[in-house]
């Protein structure tokens, strides 16, 4: 699997995700600077976490219009899988590749801790190595992760089964107390109708090997490696 990670000014999880992908797949990852006009041909594009363009205007708004994103959007629409983590999820929403928007956390506080997630869908490139309904522990670290969409969009997401990850308690219940940021329907991650584009607030790359304190994030990368290996 050949993956490209897009690097924006202010990205800070770009190397983490590169290292995680390389550790699991054994294939070098290409780093692509935001000013480049195009992304080399690859099997997966990753928009990493961070604070692109200092979160000016709105999180992800500037990055969504940077030079390289024109090609990312074109390639995504032509079928290249795109994974957006944290700031990457915000960028996917601002670029119109995923619906809705990530607003300031309802608590107004930056939330940096492990959360429990329920894997609602396993027929995606990114979650095939998990069990449906499995509860996993992954860290979040964001100030703007409060997912918002209008009622019609939420209904559509639920009806089409596009909520891939939901904030839950340890036993898998999507309670308000388990919601770290006020997201509607406890949404932690959604995909596009083709399930090739995934945006999620939690950081699987921060928990992919025992030295980091856990391996619940590792199967994200194993899923991608298995699905995109050819």
């Amino acid at each position, binding site marked *: 699997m050949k993956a490209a990670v897009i690097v924006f000014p202010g990205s800070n999880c770009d190397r983490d995700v590169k290292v995680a992908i390389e550790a699991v797949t054994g294939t070098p990852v290409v780093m692509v600077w935001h000013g480049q006009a195009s992304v080399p041909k690859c099997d997966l594009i990753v928009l990493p976490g961070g604070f692109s363009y200092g979160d000016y205007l709105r999180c992800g708004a500037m990055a969504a219009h940077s030079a390289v994103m024109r090609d990312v959007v074109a390639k995504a629409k032509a079928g290249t899988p795109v994974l957006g983590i944290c700031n990457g999820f915000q960028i996917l929403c601002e670029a119109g590749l995923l619906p809705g928007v990530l607003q300031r956390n309802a608590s107004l506080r930056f939330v940096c801790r492990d959360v429990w997630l329920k894997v609602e869908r396993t027929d995606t490139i990114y979650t095939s190595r998990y069990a449906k309904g499995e509860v996993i522990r992954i860290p979040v670290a964001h100030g703007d992760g409060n997912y*918002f969409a209008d009622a019609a969009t939420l209904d559509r997401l639920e009806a089409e089964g596009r909520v891939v990850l939901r904030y839950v308690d340890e036993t898998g219940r999507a309670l308000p107390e388990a919601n770290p940021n006020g997201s509607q329907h406890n949404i932690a991650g959604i995909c596009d109708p083709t399930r090739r584009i995934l945006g999620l607030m939690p950081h699987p790359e921060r928990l992919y090997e025992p030295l980091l304190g856990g391996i619940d994030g590792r199967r994200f990368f194993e899923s991608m490696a298995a699905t995109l290996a050819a």
Partner: protein
Amino acid sequence: MKALVKITLKNGVLDPQGKAIQNALAALGFTGVEEVRQGKYIEIRLAEANEAKARAAVEKMCQELLANTVIENYAYELVPG
């Protein structure tokens, strides 16, 4: 010409910052503050002298970048300067 652009949250969209401001005002002793909504104000100086063209340009700026119309409304006026 200058464009004065105001961006506000749509009705029904949660505004935690506005809520925090409201609480702070109450803590300062300002009574009767029923609601606070926070928005953005952006001034743009334009080289364009033709008002219709300037308006079209600002409209496009709002649509493409300045506002996220999922959650925000925008309004603007053009003034000399």
